[in-house]
């Protein structure tokens, strides 16, 4: 009798535990859905293009290829292609609003924009975003790429990568 009572108590307790865990799982699933929804929005071309241009990035010119085995260079390079959104974003996305666009901070000293920093892709991004990038997800590469490099805006970080 006692054993049966204990068993039934344990079972009932388990039922409450299951119920609570299921509700936790449900909340976690909802949270995951909400986060991936936001991520998909951040991932949209409109958002990426607007942010890239807000940070001063431009489209590349013609592709030039280096054949690693022969060292031969093929293709005709051209100047950078300039702004893609010059005439405004033509592909609407009502889910996006202006608040999602990072604001590029003007360098405090009179140096360099991204165009003069050719050849140092990720570090150029870091110098352009500086501290402003930290709060915005798409700009995180900037802070990541900088590593231990000096964070002074306007100064190109010393190369710590290979």
């Amino acid at each position, binding site marked *: 009798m006692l054993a049966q009572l204990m068993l039934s108590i344990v*079972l*009932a307790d*388990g*039922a*409450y535990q*299951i*119920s609570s865990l299921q509700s936790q799982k449900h909340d976690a699933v*909802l*949270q995951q*859905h*909400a986060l991936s*929804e936001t991520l*998909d*929005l951040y*991932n*949209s*071309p*409109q958002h990426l*293009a607007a942010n890239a241009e807000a940070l001063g990035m431009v489209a*590349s010119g*013609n*592709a030039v*290829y280096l054949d690693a085995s022969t060292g031969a260079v*093929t*293709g*005709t390079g*051209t100047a950078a*292609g300039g702004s*893609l*959104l*010059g*005439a405004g*974003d*033509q*592909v*609407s*996305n*009502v*889910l*996006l609003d202006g608040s999602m666009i990072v604001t590029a901070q003007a360098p405090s000293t009179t140096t360099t924009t991204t165009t003069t920093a050719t050849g140092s892709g990720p570090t150029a991004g870091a110098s352009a975003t500086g501290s402003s990038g930290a709060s915005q997800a798409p700009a995180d590469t900037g802070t990541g790429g900088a590593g231990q490099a000096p964070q002074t805006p306007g100064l190109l970080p010393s190369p710590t990568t290979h």
Partner: protein
Amino acid sequence: MPTFRVSRRRLALTIFGVFAVLTLFVVRLVDIQLVQAEELTKQADARQLASVTTYGTRGSIVDTNGVVLADSVDRFDITASPKIALLSVDGFTRTNADGTVTKVSLTDAISQIARVTGADPQALYAALTKDPKSDFAYLVKAVKLSVFNKVRALHIPWVSNEPHPARTYPNGAVAGNLVGFVGTDGPQAGTELKQNSCLAGTNGTSTYQQSADYVRLPGSTVVTKPATDGGTVTLTIDSNLQWFAQQTLANQAQAVGADWGTAMIVRVSDGHIMADADYPSVDPNDRNSVGVDALGARSFTTPYEPGSIMKPATVSGLVDAGLVTAASHVDVPGRFTDGLPAGSYIKDAFPHGDMHMTVAGVIMNSSNIGIAELTKLQSEKDRYANLIKFGLGSKTSVGFLGESAGTVKTPEQVDSITTVTQQFGQGMTATSAQVASLYQTIGNDGKKVPLTLVQSCTAADGTVTYPTTGATTQVVKASTAQSVRQMMETVTTQGSLRTLINIPGYRIAAKSGTAQVADGNGYGKDYIVSVAGLIPADKPQYAVIVTLAKPDTIKTSAAAAPAYATIMKQVIKTFRIQPSTTPAPNIPVAW
């Protein structure tokens, strides 16, 4: 003796009484256990059994790289019980996290809900007081999880919620023309509607016994019907390229004042549509952003007279029949009148006297008269059969909603002018998709692979099904297609658009079209202009076709050329197409 009689009577009475009661019990027992059993079990179940609807999630639509184009998301309707809310204006007491207790009045509660949801407090109050006796009213519909959590954190006893599954399109208008959308009554357009059988989930019900505080009793779960999630539809579209094409097309369409435009990128080897841009194009998140006629994909639904962009099809038929080669001589007079009714003539876009063109030159100069002269070499029946073989006059295998088949007139229907003009794309109609399919065929050495927009359907259990698209057909010989591509290369190297469409380092076979638009009263002042190209010309990987309808400022194919070139350059970058290693062959265009 009398005593005995009395006691016997009593005994009989008692026994009778006992039996009477027993009978009553038996009758009641039978009544409860057998007669009313069903009804009573039902009542008991209703008190103890909870039947919950489990929702099957509608599947998502993704691009060829898995980028989500359409997704199901959780939204919540905030509901309330006006009856309880209006019980007392003093409201309720809330126990805060730190143990303190605050009084929350009705107006406080309403303004708090309004603050976190952004709703109008007046409207909330109105919703609550509309039917004060009711136990249910909607306060705010379809809020996001973050808002919902804030409402929940207010711990207002009379506020509840309902799940409200919704659909979102994180890329906005990117491929909105193809993806379509879901309305309140279900899928309404595009892939959402066409692929509904793959996407739709089915709701299930879960029945179990619960305790007084709604906890499932151990071991009582009875899932009567499991919910199944919908499948994932994978399109052949590359969303980044699609965005670029839409952006470029829209820029150019606005720059030249075009009414509408389409841009298609097709992978030559398998007919996969990598991008299919429409201008204007719907943002499925906001269906009112464009007019009704722009809710679908014009590239499939709107046939038009394509014009000179059809000439490679006609020349392919002639070359394939062995009637001409690229170098064959054609006498091109200033006007073509042979076989036409008196007073009618066919002319070229530029005035000229008698010219000596090769067949390649007819393509390069886009000479209507040259094509008209060439039609004399082939029977009406064969010329018609050639156009039909290229897929003109029948819908593509995509089977897009509202897709048009275009029109090619049969030898029986055709008149003496149209029999000639439909060989250079006037007097017949085609959709952008059909034109793209034509260039896919020429690019793929004459093998027409059915155009594909839906790559696969992946069911929730992981099984993948591929839509049937029909058979690949060899329309013309490989050598014919190669020869025609070489002729089309002269358009890039020597044609009038060469400065606009040539891309240094790459061999590209191209053709332009400047077609007059019939306005019901003969041909008017409007044109539909287009440029199509195959890259690289010697072994094509991609076909690009840009079409603009009724441009205002430039009324020739030069209106479409800049957008075509920009998109072609992006195709090179996106798919890492290597520069050509051999120069374009120098084939004569005149004699």
